[in-house]
């Protein structure tokens, strides 16, 4: 890509990432949530990959790490669900609810949002990476 694209990318990619994390963490207070935030995080990496090529993106997060993080995110969400058994029921929201409109409120909901965010972000990035690597290996052959 051209220098202009690379420079703009360098400036914006961090902002996009932070915005994604903000959306994930504030899912219970404002529109958005784990899924939308996770896709934004994935898009930040995709943006990096489109501008600088996949090598730079892979140096930030490798394919193995991505698939591990995805499984860990999924297990974390299942763990949140199983946590409910401590209170007697699957998916019971057992943590203290706190007062509304605060960041630390709503019991397990922010935890679920974080788990989904991790899972979705790295999962979609892994899909994209797999597609790019496929095309590259085809070119090499």
């Amino acid at each position, binding site marked *: 890509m051209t220098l202009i694209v690379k420079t703009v990318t360098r400036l914006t990619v961090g902002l996009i990432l932070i915005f994604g994390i903000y959306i994930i963490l504030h899912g219970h207070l404002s529109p958005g949530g784990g899924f939308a935030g996770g896709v934004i995080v994935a898009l930040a990496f995709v943006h990096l990959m489109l501008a600088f090529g996949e090598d730079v993106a892979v140096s930030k997060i490798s394919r193995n790490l991505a698939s591990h993080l995805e499984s860990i995110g999924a*297990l974390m969400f299942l763990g949140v669900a199983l946590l409910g058994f401590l209170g007697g029921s699957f998916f019971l*929201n057992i943590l203290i609810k706190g007062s509304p409109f605060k960041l630390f409120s709503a019991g397990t909901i922010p935890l679920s949002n974080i788990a989904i965010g991790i899972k979705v972000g790295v999962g979609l990035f892994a899909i994209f990476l797999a597609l790019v690597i496929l095309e590259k290996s085809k070119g090499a052959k």
Partner: protein
Amino acid sequence: MDTAIIIPFFVIIPLGAAFLISLLGRYVRRFSEIAICASSLFLLVLCLYARLLLHQATDKILVYKIGGWVPPFGICMVLDGLSAFMLVTVNVVAFFIALYSLSYMEKYTDKPKFFTLFSLMVCGMNGIIVTGDLFNLFVFLEIASISSYALVAFGTEAEELEASFKYAIMGSIASSFIFLGIAFLYGFTSTLNMADIARVLSSKPNAWIVPFVSVLFLTGFGLKAALVPFHAWLPDAHPSAPASISAMLSGILIKTLGVYALVRIFFNIIGATHNYLSILMFLGALSMLVGVILALSQWDLKRLLAYHSISQIGYVVLGIGLGTPLGIFAGLYHLFNHSIFKSLLFLNSGAVDYAAETRDLKETGGLAKVMPVTGWTSLIASMSIAGIPPFNGFFSKLLIIIACIQKGYLGYALCAVIGSILTLASFMKVQKFVFFGQLKPGFQNIKEVPLAMKLSMICLAAICAIGGLMLLPSLKFFLDDAVNVLVQGTRYAASVLGGTLN
């Protein structure tokens, strides 16, 4: 402690197994094999235990409220006679197929991914069976469907990809119709709990929207079950998959996604009137004949079996569509029997493919001499599917025919008899060309398949042989409870909600 607490574990165990396999499968040697065997064995034990618990429950129904939210506000899981019956069917077959896959999948790369997807598919089917919420049913249906699309293309050869694409497109159209049906029902009743929908619908008789929604559901689930006007994807998708997945798809996936969901919605939510039942019977009889006639001209072993799946699903739907207790009993009994012998037949075809590396009927011959276990088990399965007396297929087909005559549908009874005769002819062809006759040169040196594959085939054949025992009075409760759920129809609502509102 509430006994209903075991219900969520039907979903949690395969889900946890899938996540762990994808995390650790590549590093810990043999982890994926051990995990899949342990989880499916545990599920098998759990579903038998659940059946036992259900027997002791007062109303023959267990309801579990997820998150403690009372339905219809939260999602509930329901275990009644029909779900317990389906759970036993699914988990028995899934356990033996998992055992078989241990050796069979040596031919493919990346086994951990295979077992992850396999486990997710089991999770999707169990989720469909135990759920009591319409939208939740859709979500788990998608899990099972997406994993099956990926598994059909697991070999990544050209034909597998093409079959998988066709299957994925057809499956997505089916899902769209189902989703649209759910949207209409939500707009009309403003609730998603299946029992609650049934309650609201029964208070609003003669609504025009109900037939429309039933047509949407019939199209959607009919596509998933491959009833005849919607069957075009099945003969491509089922043969292209690895043999253990073909067994899974033909044996239980089309029944859970198609027949079970259709029957649950038609009988327990919408209420089965005479018109719906006659449509079901007609589609069943049509699939029965068209499937078997198309199967006669096939020379590819797996493709032949796939066409027979269409035909046998026709028997199941015809039996259930009769609407009488005997008809439903026969239909469900045939569903169980078919899932056993059809998965066994696909496993046999996989064994032939594994050892002889061909599945063309014209090339094989005399394999019974070099592969005795495969030969004998496939003989038992063929006799079962064709309806030869001591085996289980005979009893269920006989009951279907008797139920047809009892209700006065002599034409349908005749169709069933013709279908059965043609099935017999077609399987005599299979036996003649694959396992009997002259051993072709080049096949002298092939060996019998590995132990795990043999073991699972022998166990399934044993179930085929003793399947007739399920008609004994002491074991009959297993099917009778399932039949009662369907016969009571929309009173399902009262038994689900009644157990939870107080």
